[in-house]
């Protein structure tokens, strides 16, 4: 058990050592954390090998709660799903640790950053190897917390606080639903262990529950559906699906390494991992799958439309992430969990690559993030250009790069799922065109064309290639972006993953054969790239003219479909107003009045009683005499 236990413990010890002893490190913290997380990656690969042909590993580390009928333990469970994800997570984490050495070199919170990303890695690993919902929830909260403290790393900046608060609060809203799901799970199944739940699902298939009984409503729903939907709310928050998505673009306030690590490859994928892990529950509820599928499809499309008009390089990649997460959720919605996880794994590689490359560009330009103020960087930063190009090709779904295999698998599986599947497929293809377009819009604007940046950006000289510490991770990830898809297809990753989840069986043969569908996807990608070239690859006035003609649509896209404004008006302002009223009336008016009233009444009583203490002897004597004669008169006259 020890080597597997070390996988989470090594990053945790990295966090503890650097976190507690940070004054002694003074910029050398990476010597501890990077080797530890690299070792953890090596052990993950070994665990992957160990479980390749054998049964899943399952160890109980610590029997934590044993109270009446409820027991929960901290355990390690590594089956195929977990092993594959562990390798991806630890590898990306190691590469990000390495990249940070170069990117955050001059930062004052250098060691603090390392300790926190090690803590995050620990939480993410615990999330993956948990075997019960309680452990999952703890790690879920852990990654959410780490996301918060990493986004607010530059804590003197106000936008950082706002973004971190937004991320954490929206996450918590999702977690509230998740927690309700966990409570309901325990109530229905009596256990929180995955195996226990899965065994009992068939017995509760027809159980009904009154979800709105608090409002005296008699609508009943299948209890499995309610559980699945509540748990999905958590995934909506964690994986930035609509409607709990606005935190993800704002989270770009954090340093680029964490955008790559948390908001591309790992934390946001936790939601999809959870759905895949709990696939028996979702498979038992058709309604839940419907909701999941639609949420994913809508998110994918809306995010892609927003990315079309963004100017900030990191926000473009962030919306791209959101769109791809929508794809993965949609895949789960049609029951193709394996395809979703496959896309998750390849996406982890090429999205982290895109973020790190974007960070390299930002770093070399001294902090510039607006793509309209870049341009022609390909001759200064050849390595970054090539790797980012490879990542973009992978994202767009051009064969033989990684995204083609995984994204196409999702689209073809979706098409096979009946007439609703056709709708999902159509949305997916449209989104693929948009994806290719905005990705290459970014490439053309940043790396080709006229140079719009000032040459005094970074340390007062022209942009140059980033140091080796930053480019090695780019190269490693580029290798992954190129080969991961082909490798997955060749080594039948779906079959490999099917140990942990069901492979969908669709009845009948599809109307259109698979190969034609794949061809359509490739054409879609090429169309997108060509359009981007037309608009941005050479000087052109088409974009400007289009934005003027379709002004309402342009505004809608650029303003992120006004989600932030709507939430502000509907939720935030009334809440603030309500809080203000409660503060003024209840807190100040009632509670303070009571407390201050007690104090001031004591004071006034004291002031009035003080008048008895005149200090004059004869007053005291008079009172004594009055008391005496008063008592005598009571005894005499009142029998």
């Amino acid at each position, binding site marked *: 058990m020890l080597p597997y236990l070390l996988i989470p413990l090594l990053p945790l010890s990295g966090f503890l050592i650097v976190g507690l002893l940070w004054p002694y490190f003074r910029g050398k913290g990476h010597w501890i954390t990077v080797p530890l997380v690299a070792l953890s990656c090596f052990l993950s690969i070994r665990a992957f090998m160990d479980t390749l042909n054998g049964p899943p590993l399952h160890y109980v580390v610590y029997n934590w709660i044993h109270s009446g009928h409820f027991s929960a333990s901290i355990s390690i469970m590594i089956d195929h799903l977990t092993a594959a994800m562990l390798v991806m997570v630890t590898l990306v984490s190691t590469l990000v640790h390495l990249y940070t050495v170069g990117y955050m070199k001059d930062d004052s919170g250098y060691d603090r950053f390392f300790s926190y990303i090690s803590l995050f890695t620990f939480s993410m690993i615990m999330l993956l190897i948990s075997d019960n919902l309680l452990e999952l929830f703890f790690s879920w909260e852990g990654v959410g917390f780490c996301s918060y403290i990493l986004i607010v790393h530059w804590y003197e900046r106000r936008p950082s606080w706002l973004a971190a608060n937004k991320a954490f609060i929206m996450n918590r809203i999702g977690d509230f639903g998740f927690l309700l799901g966990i409570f309901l799970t325990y109530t229905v199944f009596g256990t929180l262990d995955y195996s226990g739940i899965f065994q009992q699902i068939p017995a509760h298939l027809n159980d009904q529950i009154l979800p709105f009984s608090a409002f005296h409503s008699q609508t009943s729903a299948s209890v499995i559906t309610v559980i699945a939907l509540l748990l999905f709310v958590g995934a909506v928050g964690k994986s930035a699906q609509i409607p709990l998505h606005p935190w993800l673009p704002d989270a770009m306030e954090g340093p680029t390494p964490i955008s790559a690590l948390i908001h591309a490859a790992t934390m946001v994928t936790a939601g999809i991992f959870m759905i895949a892990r709990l696939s028996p529950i979702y498979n038992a509820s058709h309604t839940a799958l419907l909701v999941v599928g639609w949420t994913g499809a809508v998110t994918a499309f809306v995010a892609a439309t927003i990315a079309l008009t963004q100017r900030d390089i990191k926000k473009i990649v962030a919306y791209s992430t959101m769109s791809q997460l929508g794809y993965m959720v949609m895949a789960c919605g049609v029951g193709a969990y394996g395809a979703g996880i496959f896309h998750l794994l390849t996406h982890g590689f090429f999205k982290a690559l895109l973020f790190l490359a974007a960070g390299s560009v930002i770093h070399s330009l001294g902090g510039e993030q607006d793509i309209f103020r870049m341009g022609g960087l390909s001759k200064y930063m050849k390595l970054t250009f090539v790797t980012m190009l490879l990542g973009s090709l992978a994202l767009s779904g051009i064969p033989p790069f990684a995204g083609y295999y995984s994204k196409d698998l999702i689209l073809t599986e979706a098409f096979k799922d009946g007439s609703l599947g056709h709708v999902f497929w159509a949305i997916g293809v449209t989104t693929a065109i948009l994806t290719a377009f905005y990705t290459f819009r970014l490439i053309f604007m940043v790396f080709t064309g006229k140079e719009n940046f000032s040459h005094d950006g970074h340390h007062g000289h022209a942009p140059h290639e980033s140091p080796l510490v930053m480019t090695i991770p780019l190269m490693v990830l580029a290798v992954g972006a190129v080969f991961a898809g082909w490798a997955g297809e060749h080594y039948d990753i779906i079959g490999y993953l099917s140990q942990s989840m069901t492979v969908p069986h669709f009845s009948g043969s599809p109307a259109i054969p698979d190969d034609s569908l794949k061809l359509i996807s490739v054409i879609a990608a090429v169309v997108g790239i060509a359009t981007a070239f037309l608009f941005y690859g050479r000087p052109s006035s088409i974009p400007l003219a289009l934005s003027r003609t379709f002004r309402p649509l342009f505004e809608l896209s650029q303003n992120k479909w006004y989600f932030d404004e709507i939430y502000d008006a509907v939720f935030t302002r009334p809440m603030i107003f309500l809080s203000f009223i409660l503060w003024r009336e209840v807190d100040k008016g009632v509670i303070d009045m009571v407390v201050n009233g007690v104090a001031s009444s004591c004071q006034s009583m004291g002031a009035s009683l003080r008048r008895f*203490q*005149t*200090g*004059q*002897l*004869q007053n005291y004597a*008079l009172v004594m*005499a009055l008391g005496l004669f008063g008592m005598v008169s009571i005894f005499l006259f009142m029998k």
Partner: protein
Amino acid sequence: MVPLSWYVALSSTLFLIGLVGVLIRRNIVIVLLCIEIMLNAVNINFVAFSKYQHVIDGQIFVFFVITVAAAEVAVGLGIIIALFRLRETINIDEINILKL
């Protein structure tokens, strides 16, 4: 024969006069004089009862009351003199350090 109740009435009235004097006068020395009046009233009571019950113990008590009254006067006047040195007044109103 004088009924006992008349002696009791006399003694109580005298006591009340002394009490009123204690409570009313502003001069400390006069207050002490009125305390003496009260003590004497009690003495009258004791002696009257002693005679009417044919026991001598009442008069013994009067003996001791007189003794203690003498001691008390000595000490009390000493206090007044010390207080006068401090405050230059024998007005009882102006000795109010205990005032809150």
